[in-house]
């Protein structure tokens, strides 16, 4: 457990010490020092604390083995540690029990799993799936694949000019034809936090299940899947300061047990013969093949890390950064922030008049500032705001006000450069 957490006040400098990569500089050249890294791209992927790196290293050095098979000592040890993380994830989401937690490769795979398994089984031609305009491509394309196969209809909930989810439009879209709602819990572009509880309540009045893409939401606040009454909830480890290659699907057990396997293979069967094969109950049914075992151990350490810091304390720190950075950026002439919904997460997308985001990204990078440029895997949203690509600064638990200042200074340098 990091010492930093013993402090009541959020000590961001001590938090930063937990992240080895934050000490590095970038663009160092022969004889010339580089610029300190200002990492404002946690929305794409967060950096990893030493606690996560060490947990994975320790596991590989001391306890590694395949799991759920073999009677030997290490297999037991590894299985116990692996399954303990499942329980930890269940607690992290306040899921009723760990049988509701399925490990996948990514959020993307978790959504594909629901689209393929639930979607193919329970959706028919003409059935409607409701998405929102704010979705990441990961929560659009799996449904389009299903659309091509099953001739379902996709309906899209709009947002207003601030990026607020349009609850009234959503109500109007719900009908007897609606068979599933799949929306983001926090937009990766606008930062908008959607009214998950209201979305689920309205759907449940008609008996419609709801999937939330929580890839950003779990990072920036506390998520309680029972409180919002999510039927499915997905997130990914690597945005939560954990390793890549691992996602999580939470599903209500009644739904999961009615769903057929997504992939076939080892670890998901009860018995196999060429006359027929029977499948295990969830979550094993959906975990064919050897899972990313070490990564699961890493996710466990990441959850321990954020819980030790305190999810409310992290959220408060990030809110302060969001507020401060928004204020500072707003003073830059010609800079337009896209996404100003109340209560949004610490993600700021913006356009700079007269300068293309790609040019902004290249120039601020020379000042050590890492931001994302482009359409952030959410093209329909870019069209909605008629901005094309944007620059996105996304803040994490290790960022500081000084880094927000560095961003603003580098953006001013861009303006000078282009005479904009």
């Amino acid at each position, binding site marked *: 457990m990091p010492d930093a957490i013993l402090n009541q006040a959020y000590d961001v400098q001590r938090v930063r010490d937990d992240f080895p990569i934050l000490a590095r500089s970038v*663009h160092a*050249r022969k004889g*010339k020092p580089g*610029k300190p890294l200002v990492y404002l791209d946690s929305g794409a992927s967060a950096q990893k604390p030493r606690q996560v790196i060490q947990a994975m290293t320790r596991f590989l050095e001391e306890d590694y083995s395949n799991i759920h098979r073999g009677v030997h000592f290490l297999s037991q040890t590894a299985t116990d540690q692996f399954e303990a993380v499942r329980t930890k994830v269940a607690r992290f989401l306040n899921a009723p029990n760990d049988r509701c937690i399925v490990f996948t490769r990514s959020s993307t795979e978790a959504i594909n799993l629901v689209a393929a398994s639930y979607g193919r089984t329970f959706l028919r031609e003409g059935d409607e799936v409701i998405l929102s305009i704010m979705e990441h491509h990961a929560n659009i394309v799996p449904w389009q694949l299903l659309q091509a196969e099953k001739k379902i209809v996709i309906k899209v909930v709009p947002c207003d000019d601030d990026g607020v989810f349009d609850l009234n439009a959503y109500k109007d879209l719900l009908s007897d034809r609606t068979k599933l709602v799949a929306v983001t819990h926090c937009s990766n572009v606008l930062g908008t936090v959607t009214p998950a509880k209201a979305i689920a309540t309205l759907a449940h009045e008609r008996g419609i299940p709801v999937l939330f893409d929580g890839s950003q939401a779990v990072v920036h606040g506390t998520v309680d899947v029972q409180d919002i009454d999510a039927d499915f909830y997905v997130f990914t480890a690597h945005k939560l300061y954990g390793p890549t290659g691992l996602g999580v699907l939470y599903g209500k057990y009644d739904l999961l047990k009615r769903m057929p396997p997504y992939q076939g293979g080892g670890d998901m069967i009860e018995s196999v013969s060429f006359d027929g094969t029977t499948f295990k109950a969830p979550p094993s049914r959906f975990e064919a093949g050897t899972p990313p075992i070490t990564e699961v151990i890493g996710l466990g350490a990441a959850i321990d890390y954020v819980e030790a810091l305190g999810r409310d304390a992290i959220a408060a720190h990030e809110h302060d950064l969001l507020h401060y950075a928004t204020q500072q950026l707003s003073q830059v002439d010609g800079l337009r922030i896209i996404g100003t919904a109340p209560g949004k997460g610490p993600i700021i997308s913006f356009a700079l008049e*007269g*300068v*293309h*985001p*790609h*040019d902004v990204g*290249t*120039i601020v990078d*020379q000042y050590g500032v890492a931001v994302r*440029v*482009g*359409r952030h895997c959410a*093209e329909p949203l*870019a069209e909605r705001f008629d901005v*094309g*690509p944007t620059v996105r600064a996304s803040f994490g638990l290790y960022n500081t006000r000084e880094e927000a200042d560095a961003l603003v200074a580098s953006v001013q340098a861009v303006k000078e*450069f*282009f*005479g904009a």
Partner: protein
Amino acid sequence: MMDDLRELYQEVILDHGKHPRNFRHPDDSNREAKGENPMCGDRFMVYLTLKDGVVEDVAFQGRGCAISTASASMMTELVRGRTAEEAEKLFHVFHELCTKDDPEPHGDIDDETMEKLMVMSGVRQFPVRVKCATLAWHAMDAALHGEATASSDQF
């Protein structure tokens, strides 16, 4: 550090980026291709008027960053009046300049043209921007070959 930036964003590039030449859709064009970079959303249409194997006119429209816009603009100035074969050769030489530290000898391309091609070669220091610099050139090449699109995924 800033030297690299100045090398990438030379005055002539900033100028072409802000005031692109031949930014239009010619009435008599008979070839066209779309160039698209899915990563950043840059999208250009390149229009050619090809008669008897000669590029009589070349123009473009679309939206992109300073690098891709400037490169497209400069491409139109360099390619106009050339034979299809010459245009292809220029594309090849330009691509080498943008991607290789010691490009192949350029053969019979005159110094003035070479100098213009060299302006963009600062992108070598910025590998992710090479696709910006070559986008419209790829579209021009696709149009010459009668293809409808050039995606930067293939570059």
